[in-house]
């Protein structure tokens, strides 16, 4: 940190003076110079800019953590550029080594800067305010008056006026009495608190990243899950989280309710669940947006919702599959949803139903439907029925929301019917199989998250803000009074009082405070 400018102003700061890099060879000198350069304010500034700059691609390019599907799409659209971007981690900027390098350097620089500052500040806290400068009238704020009373008496009055200041009284060699006062140490205290809190905050973030986990699960009404890795549709954990020790609890989705305003805006989403914690007692909870369920550090969130169309399939072999359903994925704000229902046990051949569900079906006139509202006012499906081999046992992973297109391409699976159905409507295949659209269930998706660093982040933040407010609002300032017996010594005793004041350049309103102090001392009477 460089401290230049007016000497008197820097005297009010506890910024360490930056020493010039020493010349000469030797690894020790080189290392020391490198350290000084790293911990200089200039380097910190450059690193701050780099950090801001480095974050930009993370907001403009699709990010794997935020939206993996978009990354896939981007890579398909930019086959030449994408591999280069990928090599530099630009699809996962905030976990990339170069982003980490910038903020780690910044924090090393910060700590290297902070340690000497803390030392200097502790020293300043113990030290008495400095002696009065010889020429108080050369300070930015000064005044001079003659007051009643002997210097000693005026000095006592000055101490009273300066209540709340750190005050020291000195006898000068010339015989004058000088009172030095200083105030505003909290500025630097706040500054240090801010920066220490910032490092604690980073530590909290790191703890969360290392030991935290999140899991996501989709549940239809009437179904449940338990907090184990296997029951999640997706699960990601920090390297130290350990998959064995998830907090044991289970939750069942009873009913999902979406309510709407008259104009069609969604007003509330609510999932009525029952959950069982470690004590084995079952409790109800109304899970809503903005109000997660909090269980000993684990939190359960309602993330999204949608519809699962229900079908009844009767095969010529005499099987009846009643009320089979699968969650369909919303494609737009009106919940036009796509998905697939698979029947690997159907005889004589497997059956798959792929299609589209619209809670409020609007027919464009050509038989293609979409949804006009997220409310189930006129539910309908548009389905393709497939028969043959679904390919679930090929070992090739396939989406639960679609029929495997490779099976269709190879001819193992054939499209045998297409139909738009309202609830109760059915379609019959050539072999006598009938498929009836029974209606729908609702589903909701949930996220379980645990972040053991979160509390530290919150506490660190509270201190960070406190420190910031102190360091930006408190002013460090000094005030001196020099008292010399008046030369005219025949009447009652009088004292020539010289005032001097000094504040940091940022100080607004010190002129006012200075004037007030001078005024109060002048108005004070010896009693």
């Amino acid at each position, binding site marked *: 940190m460089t401290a230049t400018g007016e000497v008197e102003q820097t005297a009010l700061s506890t910024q360490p003076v930056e020493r010039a890099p020493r010349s000469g060879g030797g690894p020790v000198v080189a290392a020391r110079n490198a350290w000084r350069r790293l911990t200089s304010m200039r380097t910190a500034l450059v690193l*701050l800019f780099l950090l801001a700059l480095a974050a930009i691609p993370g907001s403009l390019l699709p990010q794997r953590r935020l939206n993996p599907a978009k990354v896939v799409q981007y890579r398909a659209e930019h086959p030449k550029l994408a591999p280069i971007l990928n090599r530099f981690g630009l699809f996962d900027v905030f976990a990339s080594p170069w982003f980490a390098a910038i903020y780690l350097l910044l924090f090393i620089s910060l700590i290297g800067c902070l340690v000497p500052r803390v030392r200097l500040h502790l020293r300043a806290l113990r030290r008495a305010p400095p002696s009065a400068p010889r020429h108080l009238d050369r300070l930015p704020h000064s005044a001079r008056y003659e007051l009643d009373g002997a210097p000693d008496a005026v000095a006592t009055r000055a101490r009273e006026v300066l209540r709340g200041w750190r005050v020291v009284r000195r006898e000068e060699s010339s015989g004058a009495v000088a009172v030095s006062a200083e105030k505003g140490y909290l500025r630097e205290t706040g500054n240090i608190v801010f920066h220490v809190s910032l490092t604690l905050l980073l530590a909290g973030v790191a703890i969360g990243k290392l030991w935290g986990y*999140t899991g996501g699960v989709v549940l239809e009404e009437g179904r449940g899950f338990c907090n184990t890795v296997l029951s999640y549709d997706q699960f990601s954990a920090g390297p130290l989280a350990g998959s064995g020790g998830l907090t044991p609890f289970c939750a069942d989705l009873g009913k999902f309710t979406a309510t709407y305003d008259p104009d069609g805006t969604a007003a509330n989403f609510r999932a009525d669940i029952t959950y069982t914690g470690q004590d084995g007692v079952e409790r109800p909870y109304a899970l809503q947006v*903005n109000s997660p369920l909090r269980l000993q550090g684990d939190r359960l969130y309602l993330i999204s919702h949608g519809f699962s169309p229900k079908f009844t399939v009767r095969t010529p072999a005499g099987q009846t599959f009643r009320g089979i359903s699968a969650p369909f994925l919303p494609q737009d704000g009106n919940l036009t949803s796509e998905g697939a229902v698979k029947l690997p046990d159907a005889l004589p051949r497997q059956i798959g139903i792929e299609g589209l569900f619209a809670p409020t079906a609007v027919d464009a006139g050509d038989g293609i439907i979409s949804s006009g509202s997220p409310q189930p006012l006129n539910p309908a499906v548009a389905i393709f029925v497939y028969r043959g081999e679904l390919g679930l046992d090929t070992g090739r992973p396939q989406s639960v929301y679609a029929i495997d297109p490779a099976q269709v391409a190879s001819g193992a699976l054939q499209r045998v019917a297409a139909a738009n159905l309202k609830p109760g409507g059915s379609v019959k295949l050539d072999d006598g199989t009938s498929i009836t659209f029974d209606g729908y269930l609702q589903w909701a998706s949930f996220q379980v998250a645990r972040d053991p660093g979160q509390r530290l982040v919150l506490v660190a933040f509270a201190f960070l803000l406190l420190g910031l407010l102190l360091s930006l609002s408190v002013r460090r300032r000094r005030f001196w009074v020099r008292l010399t017996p008046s030369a005219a010594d025949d009447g009652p005793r009088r004292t020539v009082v010289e005032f001097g004041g000094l504040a940091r350049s940022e100080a*607004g309103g010190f002129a006012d405070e200075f004037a007030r102090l001078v005024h109060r001392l002048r108005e004070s009477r010896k009693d």
Partner: protein
Amino acid sequence: MAVNAGLAQLSDTLFTTSIALYSLALVSYCGEYAFGRRGRVAETAAVPATAKVLVGAGGPEVAPSAPPTSSAPSAVSGEAGDGAAGSPEKFGRDAVVNRPAQRFGRLAVLLTLLGAAGHLTSIVLRGTAVDRIPWGNMYEFSSAVGFVAVAAFCVVLARQPRIRYLGMFVMLPVILLMFLAGTVLYAKAAPLVPALRSYWLAIHVTAAITATGTFLVSFVASVLYLIRERYDRLVPAGAGTIRFPVSLGSRLPESRLLDQVAYRTVAFGFPVWTFGIAAGAMWAEAAWGRYWGWDPKETWAFIAWVIYAAYLHARSTAGWRGRKAAWINLLGYGAMTFNFFVVNIVVAGLHSYAGLS
């Protein structure tokens, strides 16, 4: 929750009215600026710095006429160098300069206050019409930011009366922003989606609005600082004809004052912005399952925060004070603007509440 169409209509009318009043204020500020005497600011700046406070060096008999317990505005004007004689008239210096300028200035302030009153009423009525805090979309947000900028200017004005004619430089971006709000960004009064129905909306967005409005005033101060600073370098160098916009420098306050206004507004706005980000993080923890997820909006809020932090550091670093710091301040507002317009409208993210379709 039904929308009260009548109140919403009235709110829109008042919004338009306040734009008109601000525009008239802008014209008046321009009038004050045009009639103001060239170089008057340089004159006042020439008062020796030692005369800043009380000119009490004359001895016990010379008592300052203004009581030192005076209120903030007169104390700050005292800093400017007119405290010695004690100016009974608040805008005493303008009276010395000339009358038309002063009349224009007073009219401008009156129009600004009227406009602000109409503006505030428009915001309150919008909130009443939809029965919620009225900052749920870009129109409402912009309107509120414009109001905060005007209010912040009024606060600065109360402390530094001599910057009054700079109102034109504040009104210009405010009118522009409000015009955009009323046209491109306009959204009809409507209820909010469930995710936004939370008390955090009031906390988080209020902080964001306050910081954005304050930073706007700071941005204007830094632009003017850069103009004046360049003017001050060109004039002694005998650069011949000085072209627009540097030529504006002849009538701007001294650069030190502009720099101070820029700093103090950031010093106020930065903790507010910090708090706004943290409030957003707490809300995200309750709504989205994590307190921070590098959503584009979060990322740009972070970028702006880092730039403003750099500004505060730059001001206490040799070689970075002054011009470079002012440029950093402009960069900071660039990030704020990008975050509002580009991220809301172009980049898709969780904060897609623009209300535009």
